[in-house]
């Protein structure tokens, strides 16, 4: 169960093309660009050029101020002393660069423990999601068992229920698992198992598997390959793009989640990074808190740098181009 408020990339993604297709080189030069709102002709006059460049500069500066400046303020704010932070007007550049505050935040807030916990939760959730959702989607797509449609329908129906409204009953399940009668609280299982119950991932994967030609699998079947073998050696290798999208989405969702780990991991030593910082924030000096915010945001930003393409594909390779 994910309880982030951020709108999930619910646009049902169209099946990305099967693997092996190398990204085509962009056609450059005049005449290849698609026509948009403003005609290329009007951009060629000096008048049009002036407007274009003005808009460009305004947009670039505006975006930088709105989205990068707060982050700059965060990174430099951490370096300022508490006195300098309280100073009016504020200093644009820190007077002295004291990186010791990062070490202080690391030690005082036991950020190492929090980060390790979060990595454990996100990594485990990733493995469980892949193992459980891929096999399920494969069974629903290619093996087509009895009641398969009903099961798929029930799984997709969960997309209609916003996670927040099931917060209390799901918490009660984690606290005292029905039938088994044990508590998952303060164990990683409380994160891993609900994370795997994701109807959106099942939907994405099943749709991709549906697009794999039947002949490919039938040929393997005639050669005597078992379903497990077919999944492992044929389906998975061609499904790399969608596996990438699902992997990144699942890791990032768990990493960013706040409400669910807040409830099921109340012990300080078990907290995820977000919950840990939030719960200790009141007792911290301002600059130490800000330093810990910087440290907490580094992993996701780094992931974004590295996997930008997959992340944006997961978001926008939606049904838009159809």
């Amino acid at each position: 169960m994910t309880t982030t408020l951020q709108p999930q990339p619910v646009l049902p993604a169209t099946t990305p093309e099967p693997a092996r297709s190398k990204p085509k080189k962009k056609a450059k030069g005049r005449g290849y660009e698609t026509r948009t709102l403003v005609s290329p002709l009007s951009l060629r006059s000096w008048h049009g050029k002036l407007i274009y460049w003005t808009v460009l500069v305004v947009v670039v500066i505006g975006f930088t101020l709105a989205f990068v400046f707060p982050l700059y303020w965060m990174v430099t704010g951490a370096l300022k002393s508490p006195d300098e932070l309280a100073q009016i007007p504020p200093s644009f550049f820190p007077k002295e660069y004291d990186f010791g505050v990062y070490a202080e935040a690391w030690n005082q807030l036991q950020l190492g423990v929090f980060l390790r916990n979060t990595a454990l939760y996100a990594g485990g959730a990733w493995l469980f999601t892949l193992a459980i959702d891929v096999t399920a989607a494969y069974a629903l797509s290619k093996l087509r068992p009895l009641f398969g449609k009903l099961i798929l329908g029930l799984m997709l129906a969960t997309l209609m229920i916003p996670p927040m409204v099931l917060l209390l009953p799901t918490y009660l399940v984690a606290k005292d698992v029905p039938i088994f009668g044990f508590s998952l609280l303060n164990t990683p299982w409380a994160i891993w198992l609900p994370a795997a119950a994701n109807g959106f991932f099942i939907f994405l994967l099943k749709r991709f598997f549906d697009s794999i030609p039947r002949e490919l699998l039938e040929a393997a079947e005639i050669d005597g390959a078992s379903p497990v073998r077919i999944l492992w050696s044929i389906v998975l290798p061609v499904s790399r793009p969608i596996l990438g999208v699902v992997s990144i989405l699942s890791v990032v969702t768990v990493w960013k989640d706040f409400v669910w780990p807040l409830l099921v991991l109340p012990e300080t030593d078990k907290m995820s990074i977000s919950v840990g910082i939030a719960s200790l924030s009141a007792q911290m000096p301002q600059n130490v808190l800000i330093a810990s915010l910087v440290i907490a945001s580094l992993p996701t930003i780094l992931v974004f740098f590295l996997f930008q393409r997959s992340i944006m594909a997961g978001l926008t390779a939606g049904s838009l181009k159809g």
Partner: protein
Amino acid sequence: MASTIARPPVRRSLEQGAARRAVGRNLTAYGFLCGALICFAFFSWYPMIREIVLSFQQTNFVDPPQWVGLDNFRTVFADPAFRSAWLNTAAFSGLALVVGYVIPFVLAVVLNELRHAKAYLRFVVYLPVMLPPAVGVLLFKWFYDPGAGLFNQILDVFRIPPLAWLDSTSTALISLVIVSTWMNLGTGTLIYLAALQSIPGDLYESAELDGAGLFRRVWHVTVPQTKLILLVMLLLQIVATMQVFIEPYLLTGGGPENATVTVAYLMYQYAFNFGDFGGGGALGLMLMVVLIVFSAFYLRVSRDNEGGR
């Protein structure tokens, strides 16, 4: 004659083979499905039923739970925070729509016209979405500081008197909307941008030949061409913003004077601060009914969207 006698056994063994293969296939399939079935059963399907049961029961987790009819609903109705919570949630969603629905579309339209710095702008607008929400919210808590906070300093540059931001009933809710919008703007912008790229250029071409100006081209070409995705995003955003929890939880604790209590936050308070899971369940059920209407509509629209193309 001999051949007609010989045939049935062959057919039967073929049928048996097919049946055995079908059984085998089903067994394998359910073997593959069992992990997902268990996870869904425990963490999605059962909680839905439990949510309904919960709201009609009173339980202290020691004695067996008791059916109390509509008592939980009466309790929360009588709570003065109940009315505030719904009004605030509606206001939050409404304000988030006013700010957060139009801006991404405008940004996407502008971005789509630019030929330079596109990768940078796309990257930057999505940056806040990648921050863990708790980090973004705590960062803005510091910016909202009435003393040396960034926002009051910026106001000071323009000689505008400082605001109390989170500490005043009149500005607290809008402050939450600003954080939430800042953190989520990138999603909408990039989705619209992808939608805009699929609009055929000839439509603009012919509209221009017919003498349509810039704004009429936006209104008569861009908007109708992205109508479905706009509707989908509208419903999606309503559902997302009505579940708002982390902003009031981390920024205001529902205050000042219940000005930022939301339904989800009140639900949390009932369960974990007052120990009343029945009252929390009742609130959750009400929120669920409201949101399912929007979700169902959303799923319908997005399916039409897919089928129509």
